[in-house]
């Protein structure tokens, strides 16, 4: 009889992972370090240096979007975790609701909303403001990122905050801590696991997105994702440079994750 903790049970996924994660990774590395004929070269990596501004823009915009998501999601997560359980389910569903719609469609909708003749400018015009050209700017790209990824920040924050006992907050207040102090000394340290997961889950997709920047950035606010997409589906079909760019992106993501995960372990010890 097979025991439930038999490690053989994990083999199917292990095989899956090797086939569809490890092997493709090796292929990416191979392409990144070879030229069209399969000879070893570093040209692909060095040619990327010309796109520094694109990488910088991607990192910066993703960073800004992550911070905004965090600021928005923290109070929402707290609020959700303090609700009665049945209400929590309804509210959680409301958070998830936009994700039932296609990602492209949601982003496309913002294109219409932000346009010169769009509803946002119409409302502003009612108060005698604008019209502003909001589309095709970095701001619009950040807005798109925040809108699309904020649920990924709210959910982990909510999960880690449900574990915070309300009595801890009450105790802090009983002992004379101000609201700010309760927040800084109790709530934030205890929700660090959620914060770090949230940061990873928002930052990583945001730094590699290409649809958002194409639709809301007007094609001139190029991000790394756009650049990679152009190598594979553009007119030259340059797998090598595309792979090299993916590799650099992967390293950036790894750095980011090593940062958040170490942060995580660290504070967890203090909490548990």
């Amino acid at each position, binding site marked *: 009889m097979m025991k439930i903790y038999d490690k053989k049970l994990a083999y199917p996924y292990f095989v899956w992972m090797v086939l569809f994660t490890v092997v493709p990774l090796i292929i990416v590395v191979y392409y990144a370090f070879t030229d069209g004929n399969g000879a070893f070269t570093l040209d692909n990596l060095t040619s990327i240096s010309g796109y520094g501004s694109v990488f910088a823009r991607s990192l910066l915009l993703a960073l800004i979007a992550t911070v905004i998501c965090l600021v928005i999601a923290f109070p929402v997560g707290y609020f959700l975790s303090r609700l009665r359980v049945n209400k929590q389910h309804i509210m959680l569903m409301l958070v998830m609701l936009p994700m039932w719609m296609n990602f492209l469609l949601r982003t496309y909708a913002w294109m*219409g909303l932000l346009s010169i003749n769009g509803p946002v400018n119409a409302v502003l015009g009612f108060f005698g403001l604008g019209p502003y050209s909001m589309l095709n700017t970095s701001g619009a790209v950040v807005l798109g990122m925040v809108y699309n990824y904020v649920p990924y920040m709210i959910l982990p924050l909510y999960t880690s905050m449900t574990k915070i006992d309300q009595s801890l907050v009450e105790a802090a207040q009983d002992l004379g801590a101000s609201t700010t102090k309760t927040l800084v000394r109790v709530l934030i340290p205890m929700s660090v696991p959620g914060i770090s997961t949230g940061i990873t889950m928002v930052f990583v997709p945001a730094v590699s997105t290409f649809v958002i920047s194409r639709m809301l950035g007007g094609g001139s606010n190029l991000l790394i994702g756009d650049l990679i997409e152009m190598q594979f589906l553009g007119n030259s079909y340059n797998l090598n440079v595309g792979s090299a760019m993916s590799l650099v992106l992967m390293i950036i993501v790894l750095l980011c994750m090593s940062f958040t995960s*170490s942060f995580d372990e*660290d504070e967890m010890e203090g909490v548990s």
Partner: protein
Amino acid sequence: MKRFAVLLLTLALAVCCTLPAFAAGTIEVNEDISVSADYDWTRFKGQNITLNVYNWGEYISNGSDDSVDVVAAFEQLTGIKVNYTTFDSNESMYAKLKSGAADYDVVIPSDYMVAKMIAEGMLKPLNYDNIPNFQKIDAEYRNPDYDPQNAYTVPYMLCTTGIIYNTTMVDKAPTSWADLWDEQYAGNILMFNNSRDAYAIAAFKSGHDINPQSTEEVDEVVKELKAQKPLVQAYVMDEIFDKMIGGEAAVGVYYSGDAITMIDDNPDLAWVFPEEGSVLSVDCMAIPATSEHQEAAEMFINFMCETDIGKANAEYIGYTTPMESVREVLDEDLRDSEIAYPPEELAAKERVFTALSDDVNSELDVKWSEMKSYDEGGSSLLFLSLLAAMVALACFNIWRKLRKKSRNQY
């Protein structure tokens, strides 16, 4: 006199003979479609043949909106099953065919991609005896640059690039590609988000060929695009529909067939063929070298060139048909549209894309991505400092962890 009578008699006879022959010259598939009877359409009936047809999305009359379902009519007529799938760019079609992931019997690439595929031996020479309708293709679309012997392709639909503008938003209507560099339209211009078409515009403007021969030529022309960038509102493809129809931009560049659709939705829009000329793109039917049903595929191609089918497709898609006989029977509005069927003096200035050499091609792509990412100079430094900061943070973390470990040992 007697001779005259005989002549009359033979003439009358000839008329009598041809009339019923003419009527019997077609087979009615359904109420909208009749095809030439002078072709053995049914020779594959009952042989269980399936044709894999790979076409652009929304590029055939498919039965929606009261149109004719062309594929169903073909299946009904010939008994051949059609497995119809679509792609969204020449490049993705090419990548799929190249990878050998799927077998197709009919593909519909554009001109420059045809040239590339011919060069790489990816297409089969056609047997034009099986495609008698090829005779209907207008002479000007035969033996094109991308297929000089006309051995591999039959043109399906055409379109040209040009400028579409909003008459209420411009003081002076644009007339040439060079106007897209005019300050008065600053922030109101929509450009192609695809390197070939955008390059062609800059090449027309600066008097270069749209098919660059050397990398130096590419560098020079892309400089024009760089100079234009500050005036451009956005680089778009199909997003242009919403933007032009909604009055978001004053001037845009796009394909003639789609311009007709946009003008239908917003009568303020107008179309102009730029003075310098424009790019004619031809989407062609061809058979991949891997196809196992060449004859059936040729039958499909022949079917697509039937007048009724061509009419159904042209009216559904709005693109230009390469067959005069089809144009004659089109809906009046479309037939007389100067956008779809430009007058001769304009048509004479049309150019087609050919395949570029590998060097030139990759140079074009590199320069194009550079142009797109170029504006805030010096950001490379910012990137390096960000990267350095991240590395420093990671190192700091590792150090902290190590320190903690060594402390915990005690």
